[in-house]
């Protein structure tokens, strides 16, 4: 099959974007002496990428292994976050009183940086792992809270009327109407939450020095191996992109159903 002009454009335009950024990076590496060029970055990172699951030391591990640690940590924090956020959001959506009560608090808590939560987590939990989980959960839960609440409020009056006419019990109204009607909103919340959770991981690993992609980045900076910083940055970006796409896929499936 001959690819059409549109197909070529679809592939070539993003590729040329990548090439352009590469050129800018290359040019920048010429003028900033400590910034490694793309070629040098590749040369120094090869062993990490080509043997992604090697383990040579606590921080000296293949990039796949480091990413795996980070992903496990993110999933724990993210799952904890949405486990708290979903019921809270649904509750705030159902009750205007609760919403008025907690909305200001949420708006105040939402913009707080993970860098601010982490020390508090360390004070409370005294260990880096639970503190990281706490920071991820607390930072990533807000989009899910806000979206689930918005989803409940967006349920058309028609469906509430159906619940009234059929005399559905509270439980039935919840499982047969509120949850299915809100599900697409909830998943949009999850997608945004996961994005934030992934942002937080790096900050928390840098501060706590635990093995993972963010810890690796910080350690390599301290050991003056700047090429690995770029390797870590690119890896973080690619994984974040993949996570977002996966959640997007789940979300669109849900909308189609």
């Amino acid at each position, binding site marked *: 099959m001959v690819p059409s002009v549109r197909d070529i454009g679809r592939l070539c335009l993003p590729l040329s974007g990548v090439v352009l950024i590469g050129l800018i990076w290359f040019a920048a590496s010429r003028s900033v002496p400590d910034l490694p060029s793309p070629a040098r970055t590749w040369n120094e990172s090869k062993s990490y990428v080509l043997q992604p699951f090697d383990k040579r030391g606590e921080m000296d591990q293949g990039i796949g292994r480091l990413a795996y640690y980070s992903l496990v940590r993110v999933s724990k924090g993210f799952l904890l976050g949405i486990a708290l956020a979903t019921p809270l959001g649904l509750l705030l959506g159902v009750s205007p009183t609760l919403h008025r009560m907690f909305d200001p608090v949420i708006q105040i808590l939402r913009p707080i940086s993970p860098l601010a939560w982490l020390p508090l987590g360390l004070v409370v939990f005294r260990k880096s792992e639970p503190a990281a989980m706490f920071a991820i959960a607390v930072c990533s839960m807000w989009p899910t809270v806000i979206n689930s609440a918005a989803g409940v409020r967006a349920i058309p009056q028609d469906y509430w009327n159906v619940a009234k006419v059929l*005399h559905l019990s509270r439980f039935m109204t919840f499982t047969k109407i509120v949850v299915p009607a809100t599900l697409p909103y909830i998943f949009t919340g999850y997608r945004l939450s996961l994005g934030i959770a992934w942002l937080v991981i790096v900050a928390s690993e840098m501060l706590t020095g635990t093995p993972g992609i963010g810890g690796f980045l910080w350690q390599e900076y301290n050991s003056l191996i700047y090429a690995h910083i770029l390797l870590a940055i690119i890896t973080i970006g690619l994984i974040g992109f993949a996570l977002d796409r996966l959640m997007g896929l789940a979300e669109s499936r849900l909308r189609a159903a």
Partner: protein
Amino acid sequence: MAYIDVSSVSKAFAAGRAVRCVLEDVTLSVERGEFVSIVGFMGCGKSTLLSIIAGLMPPDAGEVRLGGELVRGVRPKTAIVFQNYSLLPWLTALENVHLAVAAALPMWPRERQATQARWYLEKVGLASAADRRPHQLSGGMRQRVAIARALATEPDVLFLDDPFGALDALTRANLQQELAQLCSAEARPVTTIMITNSVEEALLLSDRIVPMTHGPRATLGRPVAVAIPKPRTLAQLVHDEHARHSRARVVESLTASVRRPRRLQCTPQPVEDIGLTAVPNRSGA
């Protein structure tokens, strides 16, 4: 005392800063087993009245009694068919009906509930579409599911809120005919109030037609009895002398309400739509 007793019901809504009276001093009584249609122009407050009678919305003044009891909230053994179907899009046609049966008749064993749901879906001719979701069905099919959902709960009061208003004319005529048959086939007498803007639809189905004056401040005109044996057909109505007479009286009282608008004390609203469907003979005569 009548089975359904609506006495001096009024309702107003806030429209920006002004208050808009939708219904004023509406009184109506319906006997057990009777089929009454309220016919009026689009936007005259018919649906509001039905919502109040059904208990979906409280009146500002006046009261509604059903079987002697004051209506507060939707009463059990009541079914409502909405103009926009109001099917749950995440459930299949059968599941929509089944949910209603399970909720209305919880003491029945599961199997009997399932049989009941299937039986009514079959009755409206949708046995083959049982596993499809509402968005895979046409408007007419959706409204059939909604009718099956209402009748399957074995209600003794049925409210039809312009059930065919969103359908094209041909589908509409078909479904009217089917509803006429379904209603007369029910073993128990079902007291029914229907809202419509079609005089023909009202003639086909009702024992009594109540014209509603044009809102705001809508109120009910004098009822017109339709003493033609049921089930009726649309074709039969065209030539029937009695039908012609009833039609003329309904149309007359509807048009009179437009020609002589009462002085409005509330904020007047623009009359967006003089729904000509309510007066089919005016242009032809």
